[in-house]
């Protein structure tokens, strides 16, 4: 297996909110009291159930409680462990699942301020994504505007399955704000559970749910492209987090096939979807959906026709690989260098800044 060279940039790791009590100092007086008075419980999503093995690698799992809540362990296991120079924190807390727009906005603000104070202020290698309330894109844009001046926030975080496909114009205030501040949109696996997590209905098993995430990413990309998000926001980049990546060339081929015949419906799509993807879409490297075969990986890379689309990630503390086996087989040293450092720097311009 190829080793991760020192200085890599980890584009997806997950500090966790230990419990709502830890967030309380970051709410305003009204919401702090409301959350206590109303007995709001933990916003844990079923997308990473606390007891599921995949949620925490055995050697990264604490004796009790959640993985990813301890900064010292994250330093040792994720940052020192892979000798990363910078790492982007994507906090997965159930903000997007709430039905009330006002409470979701309050939670997003609290999570972001907690992230800045408890992680970014304490560890200079960390950067973070802005958690937003997609329930209300106007609030979401306001939250982006509020935090964009803090250059340690390098991305806007959304879940791949929300109320409706993410390309719809309802969401455009979010993309407009992100583009204005030079922030990519990070789209993470997971759901707000407004709909079944597969197109055919609710699955029975975790394996089905996990495998179906790739379909959600495919459909989301189709939506972003056909609705014209990249035509309207030509500077916008989208990073798919925990998406897998082997499906991308074949899905772009399928979408391109229909675009050729139905171009008249979406005349703002003026080039093949794969060409749009090369300019606007990036994907993180873990979990991997390729066999451990150098030949297979090399063939896949040829289908991408680009060495700029993949970004290094560990997905700490989720259990996607063992030891330091963080990269697929078959990457040339030059490509590994691009994935681990050059591509993240090109995707997230704020990473080049000293903060």
């Amino acid at each position, binding site marked *: 297996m190829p080793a991760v060279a020192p200085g890599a940039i980890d584009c997806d790791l997950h500090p966790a909110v230990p419990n709502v009590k830890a967030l309380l100092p970051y709410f305003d007086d009204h919401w702090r009291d409301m959350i206590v008075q109303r007995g709001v419980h933990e916003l844990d999503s079923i997308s990473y159930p606390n007891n599921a093995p995949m949620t925490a690698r055995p050697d990264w799992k604490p004796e009790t409680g959640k993985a990813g809540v301890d900064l010292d362990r994250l330093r040792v296991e994720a940052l020192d462990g892979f000798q990363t120079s910078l790492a982007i924190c994507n906090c997965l807390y159930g903000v997007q699942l709430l039905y009330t727009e006002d409470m979701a906005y309050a939670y997003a603000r609290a999570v972001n301020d907690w992230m800045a104070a408890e992680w970014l202020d304490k560890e200079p290698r960390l950067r973070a994504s802005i958690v937003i309330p997609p329930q209300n894109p106007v609030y979401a844009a306001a939250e982006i505007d509020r935090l964009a001046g803090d250059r340690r926030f390098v991305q806007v975080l959304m879940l791949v399955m929300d109320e409706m496909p993410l390309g719809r*114009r309802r969401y455009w205030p979010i993309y407009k704000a992100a583009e204005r501040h030079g922030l990519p949109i990070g789209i993470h696996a997971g759901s707000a559970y407004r709909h079944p997590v597969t197109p055919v209905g609710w699955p029975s098993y975790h394996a089905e749910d996990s495998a179906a995430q790739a379909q959600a990413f495919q459909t989301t990309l189709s939506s972003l492209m056909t*609705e*014209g*998000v990249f*035509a*309207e926001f030509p500077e916008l980049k989208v990073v798919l987090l925990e998406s897998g990546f082997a499906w991308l060339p074949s899905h772009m081929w399928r979408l391109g096939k229909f*675009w*050729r*015949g*139905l*171009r*008249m419906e979406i*005349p*703002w799509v*003026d080039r*093949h979807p794969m060409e749009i993807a090369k300019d606007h879409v990036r994907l993180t490297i873990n979990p991997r959906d390729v066999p451990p075969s150098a030949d297979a990986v090399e063939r896949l890379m040829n289908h991408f026709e680009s060495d700029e689309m993949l970004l290094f990630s560990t997905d700490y503390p989720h259990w996607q690989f063992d030891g330091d086996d963080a990269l697929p087989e078959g990457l040339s040293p030059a490509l590994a260098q691009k994935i681990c450092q050059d591509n993240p720097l090109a995707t997230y311009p704020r990473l080049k800044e000293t903060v």
Partner: protein
Amino acid sequence: MTKHVVAAAADVPPGERLRVDVAGTPVAIFNLNGEYFGLMDRCPHMGGSLCEGRLIGLVESEGPGRYKYSRGGEIVRCPWHGWEFDIRTGKSRFDPQRWKTRAYAFDVAKGEEVVEQAYEAETVDVTVEDEYIIVDI
């Protein structure tokens, strides 16, 4: 170069099309408001007959949700997979440089000229008082 008579003008009224044989090649003749244009009648994708395709206008856009419609009836969609071709140029709409079908330029000649100049008219019966669609290949 030889001038071939491919059809009587009256056989292709405005807005209509006709499949003819031009020196062994199938060609679709389209009449756009009195002007005649020809496309090799084989879609470069998989060979569908463009002569049998639906005619639409040119749909362009300056951004999502903004539609610009012009040149009604001047684009033909292949009946098999919907690929659009510009009848005036033979170029596809989605990738005009890479994907195109051969375009033919036609002239119209009086029957008496056809007879006097002895143009090739193997499949068309020529009478001096009618008009004919001519291609020079």
